[in-house]
């Protein structure tokens, strides 16, 4: 059975078909070619597929595509303003927090959502915001640096 998904992605109305079993991640990547959102564990245990759904960070791999109906979704492709990077994106580059870069889009979405909640996050806020995002490259040190740098810039 094919569902019609009318949704808003990065401020633009989008309409496309999906199966009920389709995850939002598959819908974004395979149907709509938003390849910036990454597939990794596919079980909600790594954060690589994090997007902002109605203002909140969620794992798109364990969310139904059907839940996109009527929702407001922001993906990594929606952060930069033309060629001007979002301060969080710039901070990840400037601090060396981007090694292989595969966790980076999900990480940036979680951090963006953190700054949407608070402009002055504490260490606990940061830990809470990104404990659901695994990075295998950095050991997290440079990522914390990036978040703190972005906090100064925002």
């Amino acid at each position: 059975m094919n569902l019609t998904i009318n949704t808003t992605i990065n401020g633009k109305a989008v309409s496309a078909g999906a199966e009920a079993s389709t995850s939002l991640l598959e819908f974004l990547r395979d149907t709509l070619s938003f390849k910036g959102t990454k597939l990794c564990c596919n079980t909600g245990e790594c954060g690589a597929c994090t997007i902002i759904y109605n203002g909140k960070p969620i794992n798109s791999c364990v969310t139904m595509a059907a839940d996109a109906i009527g929702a407001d979704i922001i993906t990594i492709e929606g952060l930069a303003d033309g060629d001007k990077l979002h301060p969080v994106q710039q901070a990840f580059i400037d601090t060396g927090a981007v090694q292989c870069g595969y966790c980076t889009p999900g990480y940036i979405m979680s951090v963006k959502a953190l700054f949407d909640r608070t402009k002055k996050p504490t260490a606990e806020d940061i830990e809470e915001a990104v404990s659901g995002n695994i990075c295998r490259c950095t050991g997290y040190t440079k990522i914390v640096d990036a978040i703190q740098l972005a906090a100064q810039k925002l």
Partner: protein
Amino acid sequence: MAKAEYTVLGTSTPRMGGVERVIGAGIYGIDLELKGELHGGILRSQYAHAKIVSIDTSEAKKLPGVHAVVTAADAPDVRYGRTYIDRYMLAKNKVRYMGDPVAAVAADSPAIVKQALKKIKVAYEPLPVVIDQEEAMKPEAPTLHDDMPLPKNLPEGVKVKNVCSYTAVHVGDPEKAMAEADLVVDEVYETKMIHPQYLEPRIAAAQVEPDGRITVWANAQAPFGVRTDVARLLGIPLNKVRVLATELGGGFGGKASGITSGAAIEPICALLAVKAKRPVMIVLDKAEETISTTIRSGAKMYIKTGVKKDGTIVARTGKVVYDAGAYSGFGAMAGARCTNMLGGWYLMPNCHIDGYVVYTNKQVCGPVRGPGGPQAAFAVESHMDSIAAKLNMDPVEFRLKNTPKAGDKIVGVPKLRDVSLGETIKTAAEKIGYKQVGAQFIAPALGKNQGIGIATGSWIESAGPGGGAVVKVNEDGSVTVHIGKIDMGTAPRFGIPLIAAEELGVPVKDITVVNVDTDASPWDAGTVGSRAIIVSGTATRLAAIDARNQLFKMAASRLEASPDDLEIKDRQIRVKGTPSKSVPLATIATAAHNIIGEVIGRGYCDNQAMMAEEKAHGNSPPFTAHACIVEVDTNTGNVKILKYVAVHDVGFPIHPVAVEGQIEGATAMSIGQALCEQVVFDKDGRTMNPSFVDYLMPTINMMPRIETTLVHGYAGAGPYGAKGAGEIACVPPMAAIANAIYNATGVRIRTLPLSPENVLRGLKEAGKA
């Protein structure tokens, strides 16, 4: 620390490729889409050890939407392997681990692939399974490879089976020295299998071109190794295979197929594309990755050391039993390294270690981040603390007492040119809170159930295959660099562009390092072994100098100067000391069109020359010391790391932030192995924790901030005195944490992981909980 004579070397210019990564431009293997592509999937053995009686693919082939179903019968009867040629790309006659590929399907959708795989009927005759490598050596163990002979160099009278490689390390007269020791400490340590768990799943894609050539896309660390495997296993010449590397979402050695010949999916994908006559792409599921791809093996290590009362080490004997898994893979190399490193990197006048690498019914050993080193160091550096405790010496002092100096030898290194070990130990001690009073080191006062631990490490990254670079100067003065190593957050797009920019006097943003295309890039063994900066860095430097010399030759007449008197600064070729006499680099690069066509600089990292240099003047390997403070919950066994310092000698850090990033990431991986990571098997050889639900890697909340310090002044074999940095930080963490737990509780845990359960069990057995 940037040296004054350099413009960009030693700065941390943001990595090339950063913007694509932060905006989510689809660049990784998994983002690939080929026109008209089919989805590929692999049927994997559900037995850890069994004979294949028959495979019936007829029902699968009938399923609508299925375009190809392949088994070993569809491929040439050719095996592959690194040390031993012991593996088929699709299992033939026998499966040897649960996850061994048996058949593969290409179909219109992932759902049809799934259905088709279910319809392949494989009749197995189960065989006894052996999971533990020591059990596998016993006479009663099942034989994994009937046609693989035992290693020829096995000592006489040794009765073993399933051994695929043997290494002996022998120095001096350990028996005599041991007998004369004041104290002998004899222990057994064991590490378990962990998975590299790069986040991007492995992919392979292949298509047959109109001219019959095969193009393969792979998120592989060793694209040329992939080309070798595909050509060999499909029975075609190398010039008929083109491998294009995609960007990699992490590798850590786990994506080095071609190097390891451990879990190659690319030849399977190529075979499917040939049979289906359509492009095919395979994406491994994460759980499938965990059970099937190459891993960091477990090792059992017997270690016995004799010391004098004053703390001088006089002898060591030991044995390593290293798990190769079902095929030799990288096991022989990793096991040999582990055996060597069990001899330690301290003064060791007398030593004998036997190293056995053994087949078991588990997935295959790969070259995961410091193959053999972290395992050995867990034993060596825990053992050092055990000895220090028995001697009633501080662990820092005991280590310094046995630290070599320039001109000394250590196991595996006949002559040391420079030795940073002592400085790294002292610096780590100071950073973690020790106070030095005279020759004495006073540990800081700590709270209840808190402990301090230190451990050191070393690594050899200067030996290995060579590699080249091609530096092309475009007519606008921008520069394109071809190397054979891929970028996975490592030197190719951090340090390498800086080297080209430095030598050619252009801004870093004028440099492009292109990804590997085996049709165009220089051959290379791959981004492995902490060797990107050594091999590609050296080659890029020499290639850039070669290009510069060509530019100077052409510019010399125009500037009425000798080529030797020229320099390039800020995109200008100018006469040294007379900056007004200059010509834009772009002008000369354009003029080249009418002379030689294009300025193409070539450079090589000549491994033989590097070895000869080391033989003549000695080796300056990297050393490191890590120290930490932990707190142990003696009711639950939980260990929390309160502070962690990592002190490293990387020679000259070409890109300091990249170097720190490598150190911090490698440290985190071994902290994971120390505290929570382990691939768990049941007795039948089934992986009990294949998904991320149960395979626990460190998350940010459990990680301390890793405080990295670089020590300077010990030039390495790499360009400008650089040393490799990608693996060595994996070496000390497990022992550093184990030593801190011992310091906190008096309990020595000798089997990894230092999980809450193992720690609490240790406390209870010691009557301390």
